């Protein structure tokens, strides 16, 4: 196959980026400028830091060769001779196994110069992150790889024009690249036969929280939450009031029939006011105070804010955490909820990168669906549900 044919095959398969945004992978590959003398890179974003997501970890630890194969295919398609895997620093086991896998692949001749006399050179650089959520944002990842401060860069220029070291670069998620392996092996038709109209193929869904069998499950796109939660994960182990459909940055949804029967694809979840994201489903038990649960997420985003732009640095990192702390301590006053709501509106859509909006997902949705719990907390100074931990009875 010629590189252009690989790109077309992936385009035809309808594969959409599995990292969260869902941009068609083939289209992204076709954005690369025509081949010239410049070095080109393919980067694998294995900096999986979203709370509730752990699909990449399974691949990195249990099937690293699939990722290497995907990198080679991607590199071949876009004409990149260097692949960079930016792996989350905390994934030590995954890193060690991937390191060994790269070594094995090099010895077996899958990586190196002139692979199998095809005239195609390809090698992989492994780079461990130092534990920043922002590095999952592609331009921050590139900065971090270059040894700079992990701040998001201005787009345009997009990575295809000026990426790593200002050179043409494509960045894909781990599972986008591993999906490409099967698309090339079995054909675009095989892949696109699965899933729904706007979301083709299969996807790794993750489920965590109070379910019988939490873990990673591969299902065709468009399967419903009910199938995942009840049929595969064995159902909730206690009463659940809400679930986060796709990693902590997606707005939570109430745990009711209407939302459980939503197909897990990009379009259907968007219609319900949330996002598919990484497909990391988190169940929130009824006995857990929703304000406390949201505070947990807000603290995470406040800690991970890079500090570049005002709304995220001052709004989320500076103000919103303090507001939640005040609420959770039972010190909330009348008007605080309106202020919180207004503050969220002032941040929404005005920050430099999507990280600020990611924090607003759980905040705004919990305010929307569980305002009664917030109001109860403000009124009584104590939460409606009092369980501290998710896991203890």
């Amino acid at each position: 196959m010629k590189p252009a044919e690989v790109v077309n095959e992936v385009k035809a398969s309808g594969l959409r980026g599995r990292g969260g945004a869902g941009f068609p992978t083939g289209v992204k590959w076709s954005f690369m400028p025509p081949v010239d003398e410049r070095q080109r890179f393919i980067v694998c974003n294995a900096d999986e830091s979203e709370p509730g997501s752990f699909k990449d970890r399974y691949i990195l630890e249990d099937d690293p060769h699939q990722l290497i194969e995907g990198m080679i295919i991607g590199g071949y398609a876009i004409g990149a001779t260097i692949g960079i895997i930016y792996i989350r620093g905390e994934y030590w086991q995954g890193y060690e196994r991937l390191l060994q896998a790269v070594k094995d692949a090099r010895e077996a001749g899958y990586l190196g110069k002139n692979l199998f006399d095809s005239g195609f050179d390809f090698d992989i650089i492994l780079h461990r992150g130092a534990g920043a959520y922002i590095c999952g944002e592609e331009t921050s990842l590139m900065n971090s790889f270059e040894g700079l401060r992990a701040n998001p860069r201005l787009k345009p220029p997009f990575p295809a024009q000026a990426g790593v070291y200002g050179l043409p670069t494509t960045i894909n998620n781990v599972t986008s690249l591993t999906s490409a392996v099967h698309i090339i092996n079995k054909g675009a038709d095989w892949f696109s036969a699965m899933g729904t109209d706007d979301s083709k193929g299969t996807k790794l869904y993750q489920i965590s929280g109070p379910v019988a069998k939490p873990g990673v499950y591969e299902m065709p796109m468009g399967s419903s939450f009910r199938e995942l939660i009840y049929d595969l994960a064995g159902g909730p182990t206690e009463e659940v009031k809400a679930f986060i459909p796709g990693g902590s940055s997606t707005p939570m949804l109430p745990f009711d029939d209407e939302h459980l029967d939503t197909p897990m694809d990009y379009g259907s979840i968007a219609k319900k006011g949330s996002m598919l994201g990484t497909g990391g489903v988190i169940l929130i038990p009824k006995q857990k105070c929703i304000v406390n649960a949201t505070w947990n997420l807000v603290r995470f985003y406040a800690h991970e804010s890079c500090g570049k732009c005002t709304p995220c640095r001052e709004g989320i990192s500076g103000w919103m955490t303090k507001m939640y702390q005040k609420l959770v301590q039972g010190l909330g006053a009348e008007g605080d909820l309106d202020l919180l709501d207004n503050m969220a509106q002032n941040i929404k859509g005005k920050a430099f990168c999507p990280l600020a909006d990611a924090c607003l997902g759980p905040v705004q949705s919990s305010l929307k669906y569980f305002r009664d719990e917030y109001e109860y907390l403000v009124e009584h100074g104590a939460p409606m549900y009092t369980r501290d931990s998710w896991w203890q009875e």
Partner: protein
Amino acid sequence: MKVVVNGIELDLKPGTSAIDAVFAAGHDVPYFCSQEYMSPIGACRLCLAKVGAPRKDRDTGEWIKDDETGEPKIFYFPNPMATCTTAVMEGMVIDTLSKEVQQAQSGMMEFTLINHPLDCPVCDKGGACELQDRAYEYGQGTSRFQFDKRHQEKHHALSDLITLDRERCIHCKRCVRYFEEIPGDEVLDFIERGGHTYIGTLEEGLPSNFTGNITDMCPVGALLDTTSRFRGRNWEYDHTRSTCLDCAVGCATTVDARTGRIERVKSGRNTQINNDWICDGGRFGHEYVGADDRLETPLIRKNGSLEPASWDEATAFIADKLKTMGQHEVGIALRADATLEEAIGATSLADQLNTGQRDHYPRPAASVIPQGTQATLNQVATSDAIFVIGDLTEEAPIVDLRIKEALKGVAPPELMPHGVPIADLRLKERMPRKREILTVAAPYHVDLMNHAGQTLHYGAGREVDMLSLLVTAAQGDADGNVNVDAQKAAELGLSAEQVVEIVVGLQQAENAVIVYGGFVLASKHAANAAAALAKATGAKVMAVGPMANSYGLEHLALLPSQSGFGYASMLRGDVKALILSGLDPGPGRRRSPSTLRELEPARRPRQLSHRDHRTRRRRPPGQNRLRKRGHGHEPRRPLPERQAGPGRCGQRRRLYRRDQGARRRARRADGRAEYAQRPPEAPQGARPRPERTAGRRAAPASQVPGGQHLRGQRPRHTGGQPAARAEHGPGRTDRA
């Protein structure tokens, strides 16, 4: 391309940023992170506007029309856009006046202010603070933030010259970007992340020659010039536009003086010369002006001691003495930073006295007016091959900066109706630099070599040999090939390849420039060789003279009429009378003959170069840091009427206090009378603010002399649309 800003149609070039479109239309948006001549980054998120553009149908290629009006339909972006990082598009519509934009801006202003200490009453930036102005114009007037503000270091000495207040910092990143983008010295960065982010250095101090500029561009009072801290409020200063005399560049500056005393020098804007930047020597090296031992009155030696005299007395005395002098017995010499007027005066005096002993000093051996085509600084900044001989970082620091600008490969921006574009989208953070176009030659390692593609180290004093080698190579052999004498090159420590590369680089470039300073000017032969090299390669020439007006004084021919009449021979005692301006021939010169001792001036004026100044400031840490006015030490310049004698000072203080007390009592009485006559229905507590009109805040750009804006009082708001501004929203006018 056509762009509509708040209903005003503009025709702008592609690549213009939306924020410049807004300002070009005479409207205003707040901004903190954008800065002229630097890359826009979109970090402060203040310049939000509602932006939309028409779209073309993908199939037909026609504009999608609105069904009702038949005009191209405007598709608005779902969220307000940061205009500084948005490029204009054909038919773009920008709205900065609607309710939602106002809310977005005031909401963002609230975020900016929550951790700002609002210590304006004690802040040196007060009155010239962008945050203060913008908060007044676009803020809500109140804050809903009820928690403790962030507490960080208030007086962090970034270097001996710059103090950082980390609480005031609003993280606009101007200073951090400045160091990377303009001088290329990466000495400052953000440390930590999120709400804990602060500005800091990895090591002690700011090892750069251009650090003071960050105090000018800081939009708040976070970065302050330590030498002028707590010395005055901005409205007390007299801002005088001036030109720096520290080197041959002649940067625009603004001199801020309070009660007749120079307290600080800030950079001015000259788009042809220094853009917005000045070096630290020019900024901080002004203290000699207020030196204690500076002459203030004429002194005449009477009976062996110098006595103060009036100007009339002094001129009469000089005239008397000069009348007795014969031809060529009087020498006249000026320092080479004298003005043209001084030079004309000196020349006519010399003509009157009929003496050829006239000179300026320092004056190099070779002419500072180069042969060949002279390059301007803007031509240097757009050049595609630059050959530098000497240490320009020390001789003319701004030339060094403009050379670094050329490495970015972005031509100086075209001026817009509001001046220099605020957000030039061609500039990016951490741009790749075209180092290969720069070659630096010097006998030792100079700072500019860190940025050069090629460096040449030749033996000290061998400029002529090095240049002649290059000239021979450039002139080529009979076939027109580059001709290198490998043996000569090896003697100089150069390789033949290096020589070929430089010569070919200069010859092939379209706008090559050869820049040289004192090393070449010290020898006529070297200067001639440089001219020959320029001729052989088709390059332009920039010669950097030793002082601010070397060029002008040479043009006015303030030169000795014959070779024995120069300044050096005047000092050797060939004259009976010596008229000097700005020059110090006294002790320190080895050959100081007895005749000169009689001529020795009453007191030596202290002339400090910026290097002296820096060494003077470098004290052991913690020791004597606050040796300046207002910190328990006596004023450096005694007040004029103060006389030595018992009890006089105390008496003056008592008189002053009594006077002040009387004034205060009178003011109180006035205030009480006014208060008693107030209308009875006046609301208690809430004072109505005077409504601020656009016209009062600043003059439009067109009314500012020369179209240039004084920093610190720049007309950010060009004030063209008072009506539009008045209805800008309740946040600005209804605040009480």
